[in-house]
């Protein structure tokens, strides 16, 4: 049961605040505190043999407070965060009956092993195709199924086994660990078994998602490098304890050495790493990518493209329009980013640092917003790149180092907070959609009906009040009424218009950046309403809200704007006046960007 690790830490359960901690780079403020936190972590991890494992919730909260996961502790923390307390269960390799159930297509049970069963439910009868030969692995009644054994014995006979074989050879092949034939063979077996147990065909990208787990479990220093393996110091005691006051290398080495040794004692050396890798990999995929890889034709991925385009249009309209104009829709750059959670684009230490956050947050949407943040960060260069170089520039976007990771994650979270909840819910639904024909066509119908990011009435109202400078208290007044009916703004136009007629006390000016982003979104839904009503105050407000989008449209999206204005039937003169205002504002903004 890993339920605790899936929920956000409750403040009551620990003295540590659950709010986002200051990033790790903020060294001055929290040095002492961070050391204490880290010392706490190191005291808890890895657990003594026989001792109960630390609560994943506690570990997670401590890491969040720390702003990251200490690299040398990843090997203990990642499994704990993903698999819960039974990550340490040495017996997990044997007889989890739920796995056997997985073979016959039943739903996953509650035991530890169930996590490797067919999470996706919908593809859970792998009797034909990729799952050939599973019966042999299942054993008979007398011999219970062993996942560790299955990893060792899995027949390498997928229909596209050759691709798996090639990919195993070229996964992170720049790192020494991955050059070893043993590692490559293990990667091929894990990938093959995963596909068989899930009843899916092998798809490229799975290998890249697997690699960080191989590095974390089998590499040294939680994957910061792949070489310099020191001989295991078997039999040494817990050295990592209480060394929190020391910083840097010495501390890491001690902790890491111990971690490795203890793991070596706990499990059979050959089977255990691959078992742990398998379980973490399967769980991680399920958590962050849902059914994306179960979908044989990548319909869900295409649905994500559609939604991402809307998101980009919402937050960075000018960039979105430029990419569209240059023939670069998300189809052309998003595939590797989404399918490998950026693993393919980042060096190993950066990938691990980023995934630390993904594991701590366990929020599948974070990745989408991180991609948005990445594009936003490179907005200037993407807007400036000549059209012939644009695809290459876009495809090679990358970043390196933990500082970049921390700031991008922070930006991603901020962007998420500025995105209408209705959009986030829609996005969250996509990767969980069952991949049967009926669900897929329903999904596509749903998405095709969404020409833009839509707001619920509540969100629109909040946005208005926010812009007007009313605090949270005022919002709550409307919330109760609005919450019942979550409909698109357009449908509530009249009501909205009424709200807007609140005298526009000049709001305290927000930072331009923020204004552009929020207003951008707010404007999309609200704009129409405002235009429909055409009230004086509506316009002032609208100008305020329009922000960056106005500028973008002024430059690139003239036709689109015209469309919108037709929709809103805005008086001509006013429209023109606004346009010129927007352009002016846009120019200013662009200078800043």
């Amino acid at each position, binding site marked *: 049961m890993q339920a605790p690790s899936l929920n956000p830490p409750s403040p009551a359960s620990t003295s540590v605040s659950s709010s986002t901690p200051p990033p790790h780079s903020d060294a001055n403020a929290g040095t002492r505190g961070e050391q204490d936190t880290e010392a706490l972590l190191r005291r808890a991890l890895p657990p003594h043999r026989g001792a109960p494992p630390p609560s994943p919730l506690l570990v997670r909260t401590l890491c969040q407070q720390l702003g990251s996961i200490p690299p040398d502790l990843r090997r203990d923390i990642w499994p704990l965060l993903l698999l819960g307390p039974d990550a340490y269960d040495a017996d997990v390799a044997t007889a989890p009956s739920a796995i056997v159930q997985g073979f016959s297509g039943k739903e996953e049970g509650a035991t530890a092993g169930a996590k490797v069963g067919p999470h996706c439910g919908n593809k859970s009868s792998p009797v034909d195709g990729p799952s050939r030969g599973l019966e042999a692995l299942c054993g008979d009644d007398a011999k219970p199924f062993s996942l560790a054994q299955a990893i060792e014995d899995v027949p390498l006979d997928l229909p596209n086994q050759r691709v798996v074989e090639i990919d195993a050879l*070229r996964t992170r*092949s720049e790192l020494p660990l991955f050059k070893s034939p043993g590692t490559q063979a293990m990667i091929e077996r894990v990938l093959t078994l995963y596909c068989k147990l899930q009843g899916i065909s092998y798809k490229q990208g799975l290998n890249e998602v697997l690699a960080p787990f191989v590095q974390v479990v089998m590499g040294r220093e939680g994957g910061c490098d792949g070489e310099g393996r020191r001989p295991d110091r078997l039999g040494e005691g817990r050295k990592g304890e209480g060394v929190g006051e020391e910083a840097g290398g010495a501390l890491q080495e001690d902790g890491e050495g111990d971690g490795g040794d203890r793991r070596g004692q706990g499990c059979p050396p050959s089977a255990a790493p691959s078992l742990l890798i398998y379980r973490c990999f399967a769980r991680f995929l399920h958590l962050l990518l849902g059914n994306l890889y179960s979908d044989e034709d990548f319909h869900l*991925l295409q649905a994500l493209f559609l939604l991402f385009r809307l998101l980009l249009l919402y937050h960075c309209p000018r960039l979105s329009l430029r990419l569209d104009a240059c023939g670069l829709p998300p189809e052309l750059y998003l595939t590797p980013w989404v399918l490998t959670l950026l693993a*393919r684009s980042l060096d190993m230490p950066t990938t691990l640092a980023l995934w630390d956050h993904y594991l701590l947050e366990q929020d599948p949407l974070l990745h989408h917003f991180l991609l948005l943040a990445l594009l936003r960060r490179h907005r200037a260069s993407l807007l*400036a790149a000549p059209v*012939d170089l644009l*695809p290459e520039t876009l495809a090679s976007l990358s970043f390196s180092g933990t500082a970049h990771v921390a700031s991008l994650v922070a930006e991603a979270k901020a962007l998420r907070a500025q995105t209408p909840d209705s959009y986030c819910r829609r996005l969250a639904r996509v990767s969980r959609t069952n991949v049967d024909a009926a669900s897929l066509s329903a999904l596509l119908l749903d998405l095709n009906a969404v020409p833009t990011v839509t707001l619920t009435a509540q969100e629109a109202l909040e946005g208005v009040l926010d812009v007007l400078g009313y605090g949270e208290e005022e919002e709550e007044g409307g919330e109760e009424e609005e919450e019942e009916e979550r409909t698109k703004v357009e449908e509530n136009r009249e009501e909205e218009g009424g709200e807007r007629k609140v005298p526009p006390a000049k709001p305290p000016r927000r930072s331009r950046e923020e204004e552009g982003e929020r207003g951008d979104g707010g404007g999309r839904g609200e704009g129409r309403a405002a235009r429909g009503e055409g009230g004086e105050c509506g316009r002032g407000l609208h100008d305020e809200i329009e922000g960056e989008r106005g500028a973008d449209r002024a430059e*690139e999206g003239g036709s689109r704007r015209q469309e919108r204005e037709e929709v809103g039937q805005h008086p001509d003169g006013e429209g023109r006046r606004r346009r010129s205002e927007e352009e002016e504002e846009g120019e200013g903004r*662009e200078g800043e960007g």
Partner: protein
Amino acid sequence: MANRGKQGAQSKYDHLIKLLLIGDSGVGKSCLLLRYSEDSFTPSFITTIGIDFKIKSLPLEDKKLKLQIWDTAGQERFRTITTAYYRGAMGILLVYDVTDERSFANVKNWMRQIEQHASESVNKILIGNKCDVDPADRRVSLEQGRKLAEEYRIKFFETSAKENVNVDEAFYTVARDIALRIDNEVDLTASGKNVKIGPGVGPAGGKECC
């Protein structure tokens, strides 16, 4: 603003030529591209997922060509996504691996993809990669490759990204053919316009006169 710079950069070349590399997974598309664009080779390339891009300038007589080369994922599973890539492609390099019969057999499937999704006028070329291998490891002969190319009436090269055999030639050939085609099309369009000015005389009429 930022876009103004684009104009300047665009004028640095006469044609921007979009090429597409397709073929089964592992036949060496990315390696060919790396050899061509950066003149280097690595035996352990990473898997292409979705699509990758490279740009290469190519002088051709008095013209400057810019090749924008789209390197696609070979895996069949990506096909639903990759169809988007065919749009706007001016040339397609269809690659198989001379040590892998299946990749050769799949050429016909790839040709079907091209027919379905690419424009009719797209220039195609067939490439048998890894021709540096030991003859004992070879599964597809030069003659088989040549014959298949003849069947499809397209040009054919055996290449080695590893030993840098015929790589430049293959890219150059397809780029040159495309440049010629574009120039012809431009000429045709221009002459077509002229004809239109004279009332009632289409290109067909012109032919009859001759």
